[in-house]
């Protein structure tokens, strides 16, 4: 690793001051992506601003009808939170299946979202759950946050402070992991909104389907969303597939295989939601 300076501010304001003083500085969250990149000398920040000392970036809490997760909350905490397991079961299951236990004990939701790896798991959850990314300056809806491969709507030196989600007890995530890295070859997150009577809404946005790992960035499959609004069954989407030409083709999987996996993972996620609805203890 090249040498660098290290700071551990105790507030967001102090972190911003440091970031403005040192234009080549980078924020350090769990370090599970940044430190390996620096070890390979693919990144050379002048300074690391460690966000671990900032209390306001921690914690999971209710805000009205939403759950807000601090940027520095580790994957393992999200997997273990009883509130998230109940109100956002698919998100807890997703967090429980990232990488391995040691990566989950250090990696954070804010770091993963800021990094916007096209194969990261969280982007699918954020888009399907209609989440909001809160930064020190503004609130960004997930739909417009992920703009491309490793690209987001964040400005340089914009600090993610937290992510908030509406409550969606009916949601599920299915991924087909790369057996070596555990990153998804394809991951599909499906969320179904409930109206106040506890029934699913027949509005156009009542079901959201978001796919990660398959393209250059997370995307929604509107045709599946429409079909699932009409009939929330795996069969309703069994004939719908995403065009293979637009998908990643690499040594891990070709575009056609990924296209096939999207439909299969989506059908399984729908089946999970149906099973959970009839037996809440089955939530994965």
């Amino acid at each position: 690793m090249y040498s660098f300076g290290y700071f551990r501010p105790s507030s967001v304001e102090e972190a911003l001051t440091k970031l403005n003083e040192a234009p080549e500085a980078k924020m350090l969250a769990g370090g599970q992506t940044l430190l390996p990149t620096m070890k390979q000398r693919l990144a050379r920040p002048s300074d690391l601003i460690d966000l671990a000392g900032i209390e306001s970036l921690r914690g999971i809490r209710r805000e009205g009808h939403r759950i807000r997760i601090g940027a520095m909350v580790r994957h393992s905490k999200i997997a273990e939170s009883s509130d998230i397991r109940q109100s956002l079961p698919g998100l807890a299951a997703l967090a429980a299946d990232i990488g391995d236990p040691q990566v989950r004990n250090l990696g954070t939701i804010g770091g993963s979202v800021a990094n916007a790896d096209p194969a990261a798991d969280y982007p699918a959850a954020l888009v399907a759950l209609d989440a909001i990314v809160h930064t020190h300056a503004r609130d960004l809806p997930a739909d417009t946050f992920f703009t491309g491969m490793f690209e987001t709507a964040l400005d340089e030196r914009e600090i993610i402070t937290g992510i908030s989600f509406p409550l969606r007890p009916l949601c599920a995530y299915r991924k087909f992991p790369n057996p070596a890295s555990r990153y998804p070859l394809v991951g599909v997150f499906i969320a179904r909104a409930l109206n106040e009577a506890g029934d699913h809404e027949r509005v156009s946005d009542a079901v959201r389907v978001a796919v990660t790992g398959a393209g250059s960035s997370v995307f929604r499959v509107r045709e599946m969303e429409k079909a699932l609004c009409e009939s929330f069954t795996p069969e309703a989407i069994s004939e719908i597939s995403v065009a293979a030409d637009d998908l990643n083709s690499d040594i891990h999987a070709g575009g056609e295989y990924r296209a096939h996996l999207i439909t299969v993972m989506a059908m399984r996620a729908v089946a999970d939601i149906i099973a959970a609805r009839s037996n809440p203890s089955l939530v994965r």
Partner: protein
Amino acid sequence: MSIDISLDLNGDAVSATVEERTLLASLLRDRFRLTGTHIGCDTSQCGACVVHVDGRSVKSCAMLAVQVDGCEVRTIEGLASDGVLHPMQQAFQDHHGLQCGFCTPGMIMSALDLVRHHPQPDEATVRRWLEGNLCRCTGYHNIVKAIIAGAKEMQKEMQKADRPDPTAAID
């Protein structure tokens, strides 16, 4: 540049002056000579470097020494007491859970974090938990057996500790 840090290392209060870029694995091995923490891949894949920071298992090759300032760090050297192996270490010996032994410290530190979450893990749970620990020798089978047996022994020891000592009331 360098930074002063202090931490609780296997129960002892210690301090050190480190370069910002020093990895936790190097701090343990080079500064404190705790060479039971191994560096296998140095790329977050193998888990030979797993230690506990504030009770949770982490890969010490993917953490900076400065990040553990003020923390409690536990390594494989912190497990045995008075020359008696920790039940999880003993289980690895009894069940032939190692051959060359290179992966073993990481396996055991990872296993102890597992037991914290699942005091009586079944085989599937153990295998899933070991996602981040690679072994080139054993084929994992005896490692899994050792961890299940080690967890049982730990449970027994806990129960023993909870039971009032029958001799205590005598005098």
